[in-house]
């Protein structure tokens, strides 16, 4: 029971991170129907930006307040990663709109390979580790010598995720941008005819997706304290799995899927074998796609004849 609660906490933490990345997949898929294969690497880039920004703040500017540093890093990482998202869409995807259907996917694979190797070239292949921050936490309860521990980091991760998701939800549901975005999802041509700037809406979707991935990146670096140039692929696939599991195109689905994937991963590692945890993730992806391709909260698709 105690192990269970501890894994529940760990799983929800991890799941928050996956959920944040998954939103980027789900929004892009919703609006232009492509699997943005490079999204995992955008997340990885944001980890590096966050790490550098953090080092700059603490060692050069000597900011001692961790919370202040965290907020600054968050804003900087979101802004710069959003710029990456914008630039990638502009260079690699926009010229392909209306081109043959596989082109964006292949282009995205190219971007993914480019990004991870770009980071490798400019930052070196070795793992980068971050000095530990915000250590400590509270022991929730203790029984038979096993303490269920909730670290401050985990609190922060879940808290930040909750706050940002609320804000994001408001953005999509209540603002003109959100309306335009949802309209483009339903019918891009019609939206354009009604005066919505489709290109701009798509750009903004990428920007938002990247910004949320950056939040995930900041939290990820802080939580694990280490990142490498190849860290985009596996979290990317897991977040994509989350998006598909939740029902691709559905925002609450992405978050729900992220939490489920996070939980499955931690429980799998705790109760079965840690070696096969990625196999588990990939298997879930395959199984979900094969047996319930519309996910938990997605709309079922009727084949149009």
């Amino acid at each position: 029971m105690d192990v269970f609660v501890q894994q529940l906490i760990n799983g929800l933490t991890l799941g928050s991170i996956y959920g944040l990345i998954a939103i980027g997949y789900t929004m892009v898929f919703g609006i232009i129907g492509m699997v943005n294969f490079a999204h995992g690497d955008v997340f990885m880039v944001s980890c590096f930006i966050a790490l550098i920004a953090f080092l700059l703040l603490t060692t050069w500017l000597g900011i001692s307040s961790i919370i202040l540093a965290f907020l600054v890093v968050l804003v900087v990482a979101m802004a710069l990663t959003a710029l990456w998202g914008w630039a990638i869409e502009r260079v690699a995807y926009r010229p392909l709109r209306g081109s043959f259907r596989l082109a964006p996917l292949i282009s995205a694979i190219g971007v993914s390979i480019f990004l991870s190797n770009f980071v490798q070239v400019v930052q070196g292949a070795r793992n980068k580790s971050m000095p530990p921050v915000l250590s400590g936490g509270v022991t929730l309860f203790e029984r038979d010598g096993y303490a269920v521990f909730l670290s401050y980091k985990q609190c922060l991760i879940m808290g930040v995720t909750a706050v940002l998701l609320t804000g994001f939800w408001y953005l999509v549901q209540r603002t003109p941008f959100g309306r335009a975005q949802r309209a483009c999802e339903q019918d891009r041509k019609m939206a354009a005819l009604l005066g919505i700037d489709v290109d701009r809406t798509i750009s903004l979707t990428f920007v938002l997706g990247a910004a949320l991935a950056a939040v995930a990146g900041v939290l990820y670096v802080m939580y694990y304290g280490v990142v490498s140039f190849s860290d985009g692929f596996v979290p990317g696939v897991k977040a994509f799995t989350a998006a598909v599991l939740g029902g691709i195109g559905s925002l609450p689905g992405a978050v729900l899927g992220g939490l489920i994937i996070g939980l499955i991963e931690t429980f799998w590692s705790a109760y079965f074998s840690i070696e096969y945890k990625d196999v588990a993730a990939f298997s879930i992806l395959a199984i979900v796609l094969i047996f319930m391709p519309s996910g938990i909260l997605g709309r079922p698709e009727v084949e149009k004849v």
Partner: protein
Amino acid sequence: MARPDTDALPASLMGGILRDAALYALVAFGLCVPLVAYRMDPGPGSDLVLVPRWGLVAILCAVTFGLRLLQRLLLLRRDARRALAPSPAQATEAVGAEPDAGQKVSKVGLWVFVAVAASLPILATLATGDLGSARYWIDLGILILTYVMLGWGLNIVVGLAGLLDLGYVAFYAVGAYSYALLSTTFGLSFWVCLPLAGLFAGLWGMLLGFPVLRLRGDYLAIVTLAFGEIIRLVLINWTDVTGGSAGISSIPRATFFGIPFSADEDGFAARFGLDYDSMHRVVFLYYLILVLALITNFVTLRLRRLPIGRAWEALREDEIACRSLGIDTTATKLTAFALGAAFGGIAGSFFAVRQGFISPESFTFLESAIILAIVVLGGMGSQFGVAIAAVAMVAGPEMLRNLGGLKAVFGEGFDPSEYRLLLFGLAMVAMMVWRPRGLISVRMPSVTLGERRAISGAHVSEGHG
């Protein structure tokens, strides 16, 4: 309208272009900060030290500025020219002109390719002086031909049947491990294992293909990717059988149909009255992969003219129409998947016999991406295009290694081969933007009443997956 001579550009236009280029430079600056501007190096202790590199950022921004300026000016000239003399080709760009050229190239091209490939060891020997020094070129040839074969194998799945397979490397791995395990544990010879490896890979293709083939487009791609990764992770973790990350070593070498390439009297050289030369095996391997690749090509070309091949292409064009015509789409997809997998498996067992050592390292997603890029760059469905793309994709990065001279420009620490994958990723994007349908986008009809004429890529669908 601007006049074609840029010297007389109106100031406002030039100003606009400059502003645009400056904007690009600004974006480049934003992207470089802080990723390029500060390099994290391990410092004393476990902490990271930031090494500022603002000079590099400045160079990158300047290069972006320059390139954008150049591009805008060139576009301006072209637009101005077009505006003055509208060409009839412009209106029918998608359909006109191009096919004829592509048609001629692909007709002759395949034969030229085969001729060059067949004579490469001789040419290389002549060019470098002796067989030993030609080794580099022959090895490179083997590498290229392996990818040509993989490309042709995947072309059946992606190019003909229109099924996007992102996990093709799994079958390559199945083939390689089948040979490695069969030969090291049961002592089976390469010639027995070769077809077996193809068979196993084909069976795996069916096994994995069966549940996924009713998925559409991108989903199929992602599931095949997942399967590819699962197979690789199992290879890494199932240490008892596969040797884990350490892989399998001392895999028996290829023999000349039973005669080993060794220096003793039973060896190939002694039997055929030649002086022993370790190059004999290399040349033999070269011709072996050439023959295997050509078999793949021959079978594919043959199948294209059979009902099954036409059904594959029909499937790529419109799956629903196929079903309405009584074609069992699942079975048809499965044959394409299994056949492509079988060729991948055969290539895999060749890889194992050539290397003598295999490990999961060789079967990453990147390999699948490279093979797919070869098929797409080649022009889906075009055999010659795939061959050319394989040469470009494999030999191109290889050429980077030879650019050691650049060290003089960029300093001693510069290693051009580090940029191999970076450029590869960029090339993938660039080619999608520039020629999404590949180098040779025309399709030759499988049967005609009259003269055989190519079909423009504009009509050909790319499949639903």
